[in-house]
């Protein structure tokens, strides 16, 4: 069951009997928003929680994200779930860099967001040290409802992103901050 686009939740535009016109930005945003392909990067218990989110009870497919992409080439959203050790850092970064634009990052759980309880020499204290993160989900591990909420937050970002954002100076500055090309 997908989200039906009715007159109420369609983007602002001009419509009449049998036709509807809106700007390209909004049409593309709506299409992207409802077909996000996530790349699950699950390294620990948050990944188990994510499995529950994908399964029949919580069914992430309702939001158009049932198609997981295990290759970064076709993924729109990188979901980092679990403790990222410093040795895993470059691998995660490589996966992120191999994703095609536009791409978004969701950091799930305390470990991915801040290192969590693992305040040690071997654990990366938050993935935002190596890549820009769009949405953080708190919890250790978060419940599936929180994951769904996180995805809906991502959907809001995707829906409202301007088609020119990835070419803007702001975005380039953000990339430069992380040393990304």
């Amino acid at each position, binding site marked *: 069951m997908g989200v039906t686009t009715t007159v109420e939740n369609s983007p602002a535009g001009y419509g009449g009997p049998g036709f509807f016109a809106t700007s390209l930005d909004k049409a593309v945003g709506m299409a992207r928003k409802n077909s996000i392909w996530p790349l699950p990067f699950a390294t620990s218990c948050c990944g188990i929680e994510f499995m529950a989110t994908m399964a029949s009870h919580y069914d992430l497919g309702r939001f158009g994200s049932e198609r997981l992409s295990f*290759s*970064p*080439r076709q993924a729109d959203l990188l979901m980092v779930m679990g403790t990222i050790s410093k040795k895993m850092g*470059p*691998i*995660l*970064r*490589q*996966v992120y*860099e*191999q994703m*095609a*634009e536009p791409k978004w990052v969701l950091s799930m759980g305390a470990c991915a967001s801040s290192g969590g309880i693992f305040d040690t020499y071997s654990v990366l204290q938050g993935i935002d040290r190596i890549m820009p993160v769009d949405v953080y989900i708190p919890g250790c591990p978060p419940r599936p409802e929180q994951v769904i909420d996180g995805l809906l937050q991502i959907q809001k970002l995707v829906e409202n992103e301007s088609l020119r954002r*990835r*070419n803007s100076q702001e975005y380039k500055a953000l990339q430069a901050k992380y040393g990304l*090309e």
Partner: protein
Amino acid sequence: MHSTTMDFVPIALMFLVATGFVAGTMAVTHLLGPNRKTKIKQESFECGIEPQGDARIPFSIKYFLVAILFVLFDVEVIFMYPWAVNFRGLGILGFVEMMTFVAFFLIGFVYILKKGALKWE
């Protein structure tokens, strides 16, 4: 009815438009579509780990041989399904024909066994 070369011009035109449309749209999407190519992005994906060696390495032909022999005998079994469904309708003639077919395949099977195609070592 008498036809001239001119009658085939619309067909040639259709082929021209069809190939032109495909080539045109592909060229336009490649030229207009935004892309950002970086060295890291162009690298082959090995789950984020640095790629080791080349993908083009020689590997044993036995995999291919066994696979193609499997397909052959697989098709034989597929032919048996419609035969089994119409077994009574086809009668004794159908039975004899099927047995001939299976016999031919059996000869082939004996041949590949004798050739040692299924010997893995």
